[in-house]
């Protein structure tokens, strides 16, 4: 299996978490944005939107990090998806969507302002950061209530829904807002549990977020 992209991208590392958890054999192939490699015919054959990550398993070309993660899980660790159980897979799908539409939707602008913009010589727009921190706190209140009732998001089993949060949350730790989870003890416990997993430790080392 080949994963194309740079490990500085939290969309790329979302897939690395899944690959590690699934115990899959894979290789990360860097794509150089500086030389517009992401727009090269070879890369476009893998991801027609010219983005990363892109993924290849034999003749199968996939893109969109969450679709890649699902494929990897389905092939190597289907227990993370529970597709044979209607109720469990439904809850998993709900919290997969919540990660994308509520959690990461609020976190992305914060990460962009705090980590990406400075990398390109831009400034951090504090107003955008503050607005999204407020949104994220409301989301975390819901997570706190959920995780007070269940060990993991989809229920009492670890699923892809939990794992899909890891890469963006690791990036959060590299911003000035690393202590955001502190007021939410169940969220913090959930996160600490994820951090202790060997797969997450490996990805954290790979990402080496810059200050």
């Amino acid at each position, binding site marked *: 299996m080949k994963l194309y992209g740079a490990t500085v991208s939290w969309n790329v590392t979302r897939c690395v978490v899944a690959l590690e958890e699934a115990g899959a054999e894979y290789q990360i192939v860097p794509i150089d944005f500086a030389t517009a490699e992401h727009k090269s015919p070879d890369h476009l054959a893998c991801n027609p939107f010219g983005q990363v990550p892109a993924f290849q398993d034999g003749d199968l070309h996939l893109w969109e990090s969450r679709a890649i993660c699902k494929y990897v899980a389905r092939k190597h660790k289907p227990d993370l998806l529970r597709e044979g159980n*209607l109720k469990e897979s*439904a809850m998993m799908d*709900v919290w*997969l969507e919540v990660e994308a539409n509520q959690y990461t939707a609020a976190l992305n602008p914060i990460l962009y302002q705090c980590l990406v913009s400075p990398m390109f010589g831009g400034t951090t727009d504090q107003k955008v950061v503050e607005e999204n921190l407020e949104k994220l706190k409301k989301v975390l209140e819901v997570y706190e209530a959920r995780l007070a009732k269940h060990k993991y998001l989809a229920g009492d089993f670890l699923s892809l829904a939990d794992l899909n949060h890891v890469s963006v949350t690791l990036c959060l730790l590299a911003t000035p807002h690393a202590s955001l989870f502190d007021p939410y003890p169940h969220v913090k416990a959930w996160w600490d549990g994820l951090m202790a997993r060997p797969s997450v430790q490996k990805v954290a080392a790979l990402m080496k977020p810059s200050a």
Partner: protein
Amino acid sequence: MATSAVKVYGWAISPFVSRALLALEEAGVDYELVPMSRQAGDHHRPEHLARNPFGKVPVLEDGDLTLFESHAIARHVLRKHKPELLGTGNLEQAALVDVWFEVEAHQLSPLAIAIVVECIFTPFLGRERNQAVVDENVEKLKKVLEVYEARLSKSKYLAGDFLSVADLSHFTIMHCFMATEYAALVDALPHVSAWWEGLAARPAAKKVAEFMPVGTAGASKKHD
């Protein structure tokens, strides 16, 4: 087998609520739409927050399952009643369904929704249309639709030669988009256009279109 009532909570004019309704219609499942009022703030009331702590619509109740997020609801309904629409049982097919399902959510819909909000919904939001926002999103959408055109010239549907939840997931957003003058973007692309017309011709789509009377703005063509 006990018949459990399936209920959907929300306002059907929302393409998110209607995404859930389309899945139910395609699945041939009996359901009840429990209407809610956005204006009255029904989604902020405690009864609704107990169903969806994020205070959004749709919510689906299916027996003892309460689900939210329209994409998750659509997947559940089809997994239960029409699993072939998820590519279930075939790793490659399921993967391609997932890819195009994500493409709808992350590449196409954000752009289409921004255009639809400016062109159709600004009067309800009490403000003027922001043409700069429209123009920016139209340019991006053109590029995205080129990718769809290339894909659909190679296969009948997005995930391959079989209809899937990836195609169906596009219907309600595109129904709104096709009511704007920017429908021309789709009309200009023969394969996207044919794919769209095929989707819109499905009995389930026609039924759901009746719940979404958005066809007042801009160029159009078919009126029943």
